[in-house]
């Protein structure tokens, strides 16, 4: 596999999307191997800072998946994720992150095929976009590292 092998940090909510991902596994729905799943309680738990952190640490894409609107286990956490996604996308665009590298999807527990589809489609999109960056950690010479944002 000489081709560019992207890494997509994937945040799955515990109650819907993670279950869908498990179900996709049980049904042996073949997927691209680019995802790196992090389980969270709720898509509303995903701080936009995590998304930036992922990109800054070398991810080529970030996927956040949660329950469909109205189905949130925590009443409305997914709506918070939705609200954040718009402004976050604006920020990412301004900072030069291409559209398509960040996605927010609603994947219900019952939608394992959708999960596999989303993973494969996103892997393909990002393959086309190429690597985001392969930065090494910044070696800041400052002892006052925290001052400048480590």
């Amino acid at each position, binding site marked *: 596999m000489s081709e560019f092998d992207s890494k997509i940090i994937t945040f799955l909510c515990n109650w819907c999307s993670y279950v869908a991902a498990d179900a996709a596994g049980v049904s042996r729905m073949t997927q691209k191997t680019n995802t790196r799943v992090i389980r969270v309680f709720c898509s509303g738990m995903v701080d936009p800072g995590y998304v930036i952190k992922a990109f800054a640490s070398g991810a080529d894409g970030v996927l956040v998946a949660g329950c469909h609107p109205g189905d949130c286990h925590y009443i409305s956490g997914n709506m918070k994720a939705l609200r954040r996604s718009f402004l976050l996308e604006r920020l990412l665009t301004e900072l030069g992150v291409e559209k398509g590298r960040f996605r927010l999807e609603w994947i219900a527990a019952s939608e394992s095929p959708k999960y596999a589809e989303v993973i494969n489609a996103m892997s393909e999109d990002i393959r086309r976009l190429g690597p985001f960056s392969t930065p090494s950690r910044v070696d800041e010479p400052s002892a006052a590292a925290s*001052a400048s944002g480590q």
Partner: protein
Amino acid sequence: MPKKKVAIYTATGCRSCETSILDIHYQVQRLNRMVDVVFWPYVLGSQLDDVDALDSIDVCFYAGAIRTETDRRMAEKLRDTSRHMVALGACAAFGGMPALANLSVTDSAPQEAIGEPTDPVAAPTPGEFEPHVKSLTQVVPADYVVPGCPPTQPLVWAAIQALVPEAGSDSHLAFAFSRLPKLVAEAMASGVLPPRGTIFGGDKAVCASCSRVKEEKRFKTVLRPYQKYEATGRCLLEQGLVCQGIATREGCGGLCTAEGIPCRGCFGKTEAVFDPGAKMVSAISSTFEPETPEEIQALTDQFIDLTGTFYRYAFPTQCALQRNRSIETQK
């Protein structure tokens, strides 16, 4: 006891940080008893080369961002000569407003420096530029940071008190005890040096000292500062103004917000935050009132210039993505 040797220098920036040292008016005489200013081009007329002649400097206050080759050279020289390097002001600490040049897509090269040399042999050049504007902290290690644009008088004084210790307390120390991190306050009180890396600011965010009334955050519409809002009273963010006080290190005492002007983050982000832009995005958009994607999009469209606002003073250092990119282009 010999007096401490102090150097003061401004690279790319304005003179406000230096003025902020002069601003501690009533203490100037006391400072004068404590220190010997051995290098201060702006006020004393020291020449850049004078540094070479100095054996050592106890404390160097370095203000301004690193934009020119001279800025970098002076940063390195002063670092080598000084026991304690203090990044004074937002530019030295975080890159400051000059670093907004990095945002500019067209050119980060100085636009005024054009024109053909009339006599290339005789005429001198004004100096080389760095590829990107950086903070002092990105070029050499700084031991202490005094943030702010410009730093406030109590903090400058606190830093001087801490680094050029003099026994006895002072009314200005009261601030240190109430707002500065405990370690620093204790160090100052007992006359020992604060730990390296100390930032002369608070732990919390500006809201902690902002005098405005906070009720409920529910973001309906973006108000721009030229539009109508209450200049006194309720939290500006709650009124719809983008105010960065919620994610900005405190220490100023809520200076701007008290005047009815939203915070723009000149003290940099707070400790536990990874990227201030992402945090501002999260904090504001989480409280959006609209529910449907169309409405949310419409509200989002009211926001303009997120990067220029959220990273106004700290683009090269605190914008996580920029940090990596500028390093990359350097390679």
